[in-house]
């Protein structure tokens, strides 16, 4: 598997080489070179900020398509909680769940249901936890990837459990395999995703060796098909009740839902990658040691703000909340005892530690790294400090870094280039004023005494 697989990619023809995306990228992973944006693969965390930002829609998320369903005998859809916020007010949860059966799935398993399990597990974990606080949610892969490269110190505080997506895939596939007799390997679980980070998480999972998810399909790809089949459950022999998740799991679709479900004494919920960064800076400086649990979401508003969702995030949030209020089931699918049982089995604990990725390092050798840092400071001090981005790097400091790394030149800076042109122009002018001695006699200002 490609070490640097990313869902977020560039459609080169559409890119106009403007610098909107480079300025917005939270990890400075984009450069514009030769008039086209270019994603620095080892830095990208698949947060999808650039997809939102690009005015030309040149940034896209590559996800799986419905075509992949044919590779499995039995197909299970795992819709993300935020998916249910994408519909008009008269659509109810059962209609949406039923529609999956109309478009080629044999079964639908709400990720919200798995979220309730994770919520319970984290709640129990925090009860006995005596280590460093706060504990961070592990649900948003873009945030965990951000921590890997920028806040490696805090990784030990990431809740050591699988994501609801992963838990959903495992439970759904096991149950289906047991019920139908179809071998586990021939059961396919497909996450219906609001974001590209989940695609990357399936390919290169951080907390487990292999993901049980077999495909991740973008909500943007599947939406139209679902709309067309919203009435299917009536056509297919009456309303079989599909909905099992309660409001506690469904609310994971927007920011605060998870922390409420985790229900620790002190919690904090933050959405938006730039807000997440400013909070992590504070925590790295030693703030918030008194907070038990911090829910961090890369998207503003949480998953309803995901770049692959259809609705505006605020519309999506109100639709989801309204839907939960009107159609949310009151009875929990799992009893307290069953949840406690799952917790005690410890089946959904992370099996892999989340490792730091030191990609910001200037050089393998410390001496050379220091030398580069010296030059970096020198070059930065000579740059104008406008952070205009016209050079193709997101800031003057980033340009200086690129120069050190040998992928940019000082003259990529338009201000620097102008200075150089000015000096050159002056030199040309000076040169043009110098009259060859052989001709100086004929000049009007020339001393008449000197002629030959």
């Amino acid at each position, binding site marked *: 598997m490609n070490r640097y697989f990313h869902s977020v990619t560039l459609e080169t023809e559409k890119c106009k080489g403007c610098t909107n995306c480079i300025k917005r990228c939270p990890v400075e992973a984009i450069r514009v070179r030769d008039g086209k944006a270019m994603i620095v693969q080892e830095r990208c965390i698949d947060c999808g900020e650039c997809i939102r930002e690009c005015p030309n829609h040149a940034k896209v998320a590559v996800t799986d398509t419905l075509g992949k369903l044919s590779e499995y005998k039995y197909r299970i859809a795992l819709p993300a909680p935020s998916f249910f916020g994408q519909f008009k007010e008269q659509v109810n949860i059962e209609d949406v769940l039923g529609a999956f059966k109309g478009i080629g799935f044999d079964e639908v398993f709400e990720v919200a249901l798995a979220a309730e399990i994770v919520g319970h597990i984290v709640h129990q974990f925090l009860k006995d936890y005596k280590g460093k606080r706060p504990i961070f949610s592990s649900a948003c892969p873009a945030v965990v990837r951000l921590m890997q490269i920028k806040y*490696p*110190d805090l990784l030990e505080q990431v809740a050591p459990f699988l994501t609801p997506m992963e838990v959903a895939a495992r439970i759904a596939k096991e149950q289906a395999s047991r019920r139908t007799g179809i071998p586990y390997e021939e059961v396919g679980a497909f996450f219906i995703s609001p974001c590209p980070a989940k695609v990357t998480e399936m390919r290169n999972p951080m907390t487990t060796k292999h993901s049980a998810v077999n495909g991740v399909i973008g909500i943007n790809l599947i939406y139209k098909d679902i709309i067309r089949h919203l009435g299917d459950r009536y056509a297919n022999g009456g309303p079989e009740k599909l909905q099992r998740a309660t409001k506690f799991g469904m609310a994971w679709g927007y920011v605060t839902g998870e922390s409420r479900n985790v229900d620790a004494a002190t919690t904090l919920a933050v959405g938006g990658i730039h807000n997440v960064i400013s909070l992590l*800076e504070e925590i*790295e*400086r*030693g*703030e918030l040691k008194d907070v038990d649990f911090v829910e961090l979401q890369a998207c503003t508003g949480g998953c309803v703000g995901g770049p692959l969702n259809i609705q505006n995030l605020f519309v999506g949030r109100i639709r989801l909340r309204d839907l939960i209020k009107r159609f949310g089931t009151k009875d929990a699918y799992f009893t307290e005892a069953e949840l406690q049982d799952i917790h005690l089995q410890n089946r959904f604990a992370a099996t892999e530690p989340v490792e*730091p*990725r*030191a990609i*910001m*390092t*200037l*050089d*393998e*050798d*410390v*001496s*050379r*790294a*220091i*030398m580069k*840092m*010296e030059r970096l*400071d020198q070059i930065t001090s000579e740059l104008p400090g406008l952070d205009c981005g016209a050079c193709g790097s997101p800031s003057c400091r980033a340009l200086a870094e690129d120069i050190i790394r040998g992928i940019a030149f000082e003259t990529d800076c338009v201000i620097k280039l102008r200075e150089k042109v000015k000096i050159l122009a002056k030199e040309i002018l000076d040169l043009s004023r110098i009259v060859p001695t052989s001709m100086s006699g004929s000049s009007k200002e020339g001393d008449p005494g000197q002629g030959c």
Partner: protein
Amino acid sequence: MVDSLAYTPQITLDFEIGEKDFFVAGECASRVKKTLQQLGLKQDVIKRIAIIIYEAAMNVAIHATSGRLVVHVEPDAITIRTEDVGAGIEDIDLAMKEGYSTASYEIREMGFGAGMGLSNIKQCSDDLNIESRVGVGTTLNARVFFRDERRHEGA
């Protein structure tokens, strides 16, 4: 190539610390941390250094009227130096004891001044030297050596 050069590469980071400026300590620590990460130092070494910087800067903010923190990075060691104008320390050995504090009630009420600063610094540094004159000020010099395990493993 590096070894054949006559000079040692080095970086200096310099911070002003004002009286009762409790925020600057965190800022110093996090700025230096970022720099050291870029230099590829090991995470636990960076952590120790960050603690020294935070505590040393905090001491200046709590006890002095003005001061500065200078961090000097060389290929095999880092030197953290604070110089301040202020109360000074009467008995350095006593001040090094865990829990001994001369911080005012007001500062303790804010959650600082628990008397752990100097002992923390001592624990984290490989070499520590404090010079102080009562009523004049204090100079602290702490060093951490990078040794061989300075690199990120498998980074």
